[in-house]
């Protein structure tokens, strides 16, 4: 039986259910008596059990089954939710996550054992109930059996099916050729989760037996899971009704098979009163599933690689459009068409970008649990506030941003927040607060991780840096507070474990920074001693296509990302001042260092002796710098391409792009140049 094509669906859905289990358990911890939450947890466990059983993941289904046993007792008011039980349930959740991880890696649930957890769940049950009942309960591995229930409570719905002339013709011809025509109604077990997978197997079996004439709902709808737990069909076959029935019954999770010879029911039959009632109760029973089907029908799961392909094609289109723009043409009509093309490519790009966008909720979701565990481990009281979960980011960024955020939140909880007694002594609320905030700011998405802890002790960081030889005594004297804080992001700084006894952060901050910069973003810190600190991450909305300012330096062309440009100034050469031998200009009261790009980019040429130079003012967080360029070409939509792994060590180049005339221009990495 080939179930591999359903594995992806299983993984995606299992993740969703685990997430909802997580959320419900956390909420349950706050309000142990909330019946709805208990039902929610029960449902998630139940669904997971069914899914795991369908896919043949025995360990997962046994574990969820035992969770379900306990939860069902709670639901029936036979048991109370207590801290101990919640702990066990959380451990079960971890174990399930472990299984799913394993399945993602190896398509197999692995040998990881959860006997200990099952035993704990049992013990919990036993404490509350008669031992005899439990043994019976545990021994029953359900979800896998396919015991047929009494057929008479099921309606033979195929009797209500009608056929078109064409199908009627096919049936009568098959009859003439001595085929048997059957009307079949198949009921799947209520616990069946991957219904379409089951249906697929059923159809495959039927194809071996004969030919399918018609099915209700249509085959396509069944494959898309647009059906409840039953479907009806007509087939023609050489086999006997018994053979067809027994073959179908052999498929797991097929609960009932009703089969009739088709004669006499091809006409539109009357619907009996009883059947009407029956179908009504059917509907009632399956409203849950129906609601779900209605919402999922509007979305499609698409492999991210296909979106990448689409994005690449859009990029190609933009390059060609840029190429057309450079064609010298005075024909008004041609230019109109180009403008039209430009509008469409821009809209297309936006649309494709939006398809790739995922709410950051996916990442944020796991943090309440993280904070809970952290608080317990550190014996601190921590409250997590999250806002802006609906903020959307490119899928690639979402996949990568989780780890850095975990780092920062751990840091906040571990090093930032003080223990309750200290907090009270300092006149603070005993409960420490960690705030996670996401919002869109122009072409960027900003994520903030803030705490109301002790903040970073700059003096101690400085002392430590000096002690470790990272900075010299003179440097220590001259450094501004902000520069000292930035020392924390240095690799050499973080590898030391000593740093954690400075109130400040340290462990892995360089990794955080590297990762965020690799995503084209940057990170900065605001801190106030005694009041707390805030890490601000700025990420680009999209990775592939950006607006850029094209500039000339000597005979080379470079692109500067538009979102980092503040303004462009013409500066008289006499207005350049020197501070510590560095060129600076005074820009409306602010001192901005000048970066001679030709020198940094190793362009060899004579000084052109101009009196007025063009300076592009760029910003990175609060820092600014003025890039000296020869001339401006203009704003352009560019497609970012990497330089490939043979040229990875060049830090000041963020990538390359292909211009309209086919030439390659390099994109300056503002983050490393400022």
């Amino acid at each position, binding site marked *: 039986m080939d179930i591999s094509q359903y594995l992806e669906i299983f993984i995606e859905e299992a993740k969703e259910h685990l997430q909802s289990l997580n959320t419900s358990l956390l909420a349950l911890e706050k309000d142990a008596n909330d019946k709805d939450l208990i039902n929610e947890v029960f449902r998630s466990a139940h669904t997971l059990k069914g899914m795991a059983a369908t896919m043949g993941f025995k360990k997962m289904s046994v574990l969820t089954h035992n969770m379900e046993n306990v939860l069902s007792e709670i639901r029936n008011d036979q048991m109370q939710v207590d801290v101990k039980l919640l702990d066990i349930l959380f451990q079960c959740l971890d174990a399930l996550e472990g299984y799913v991880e394993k399945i993602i890696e190896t398509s197999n649930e692995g040998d990881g054992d959860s006997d200990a957890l099952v035993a704990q769940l049992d013990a919990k049950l036993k404490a509350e109930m008669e031992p005899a009942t439990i043994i019976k309960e545990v021994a029953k591995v359900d979800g896998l059996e396919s015991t047929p229930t009494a057929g008479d409570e099921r309606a033979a719905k195929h009797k209500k099916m009608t056929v078109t002339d064409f199908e009627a013709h096919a049936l009568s011809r098959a009859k003439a050729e001595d085929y048997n025509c059957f009307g079949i109604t198949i009921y799947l077990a209520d616990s069946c989760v991957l219904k379409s997978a089951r249906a697929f197997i059923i159809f495959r079996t039927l194809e071996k037996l004969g030919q399918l004439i018609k099915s209700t709902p249509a085959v396509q709808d069944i494959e898309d899971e647009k059906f409840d737990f039953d479907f009806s069909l007509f087939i023609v076959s050489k086999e006997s009704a018994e053979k067809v029935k027994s073959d179908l019954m052999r498929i797991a999770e097929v609960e009932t098979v009703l089969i009739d010879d088709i004669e006499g029911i091809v006409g539109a039959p009357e619907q009996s009163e009883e059947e009407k009632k029956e179908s009504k109760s059917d509907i009632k029973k399956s409203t849950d599933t129906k609601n779900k089907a209605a919402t999922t029908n509007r979305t499609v799961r698409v492999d991210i690689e296909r979106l990448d392909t689409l994005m690449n094609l859009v990029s*190609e289109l933009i*390059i060609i459009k840029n190429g057309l723009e450079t064609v010298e043409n005075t024909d008004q009509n041609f230019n109109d068409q180009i403008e039209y093309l430009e509008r469409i490519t821009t809209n297309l790009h936006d649309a494709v970008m939006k398809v790739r966008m995922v709410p950051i909720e996916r990442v944020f979701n796991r943090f309440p649990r993280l904070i809970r565990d952290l608080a317990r481990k550190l014996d601190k009281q921590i409250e997590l506030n999250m806002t802006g979960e609906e903020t959307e980011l490119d899928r690639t960024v979402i996949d990568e941003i989780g780890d850095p955020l975990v780092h920062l939140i751990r840091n906040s909880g571990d090093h930032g927040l003080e223990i309750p007694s200290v907090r009270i002594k300092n006149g603070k609320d005993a409960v420490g607060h960690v705030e996670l905030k996401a919002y869109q700011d122009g072409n960027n998405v900003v994520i903030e991780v803030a705490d109301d802890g002790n903040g970073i002790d700059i003096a101690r960081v400085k002392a430590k840096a000096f002690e470790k030889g990272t900075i010299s005594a003179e440097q220590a004297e001259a450094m501004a507070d902000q520069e000292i804080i930035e020392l924390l992001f240095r690799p050499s700084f973080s590898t030391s474990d000593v740093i954690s006894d400075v109130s400040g952060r340290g462990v892995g901050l360089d990794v955080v920074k590297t990762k965020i910069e690799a995503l084209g973003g940057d990170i900065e810190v605001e801190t106030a001693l005694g009041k707390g600190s805030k890490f601000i991450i700025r990420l680009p909305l999209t990775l592939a296509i950006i607006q850029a300012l094209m500039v000339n330096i000597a005979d*080379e062309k470079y692109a500067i990302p538009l979102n980092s440009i503040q303004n462009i100034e013409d500066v008289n050469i006499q207005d350049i001042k020197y501070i510590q031998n560095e060129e600076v200009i005074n820009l409306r009261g602010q001192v901005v260092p000048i970066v001679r790009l030709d020198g*940094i*980019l*190793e*362009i060899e040429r004579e000084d052109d002796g101009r009196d007025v130079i063009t300076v592009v003012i760029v910003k990175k967080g609060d820092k600014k710098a003025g890039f000296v360029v020869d001339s401006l070409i203009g704003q352009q939509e560019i497609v970012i*391409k*990497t*330089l*490939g*792994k*043979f*040229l990875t*060590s*060049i*830090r*000041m*180049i963020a990538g*390359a792009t*292909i211009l309209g005339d*086919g*030439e*390659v*221009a*390099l994109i300056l990495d503002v983050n490393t140049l400022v």
Partner: protein
Amino acid sequence: MAETVLKSEDTKQFIVIKQGKEKYGINISYIHNIVRIQSITRVPKAPKYMTGVINLRGEIIPVMSLRLRFGLQAEPFTNTTRIIIVKVSGQAIGIIVDEVEEVINLRDTDMEMIIKDATDEKANYISGVGKVGTELVTLLNIEGFIVVSN
């Protein structure tokens, strides 16, 4: 210079390139494409022998100069200058050569492999010597001199 076309299993195909007076062979299985010289965008701070990047049908591909890689004098590009696009561990890279001459088939008996001396980086560039008639062709070890450049 026509060689007998042998396609049996004990022959390997090489592209012969001329670099100054010397001839080098590159195993054809690495070669993805051979293109004429085109506009190359210089990449600052890159190693000297990395000439820059080119646009090959919408792909950005780094190119290196074989002359500079071998420590020879840079020469201006001519009509015969070509960029050989090779693929090494899935990544394309261009090699600028003075001239591409021909494709040859070498039998195992026509080749003398060099025993690798791990201490000599330059020796890693070369995998052996092939005999074509009376001439000798130095067989390049593409992975040797491209991975080292990393």
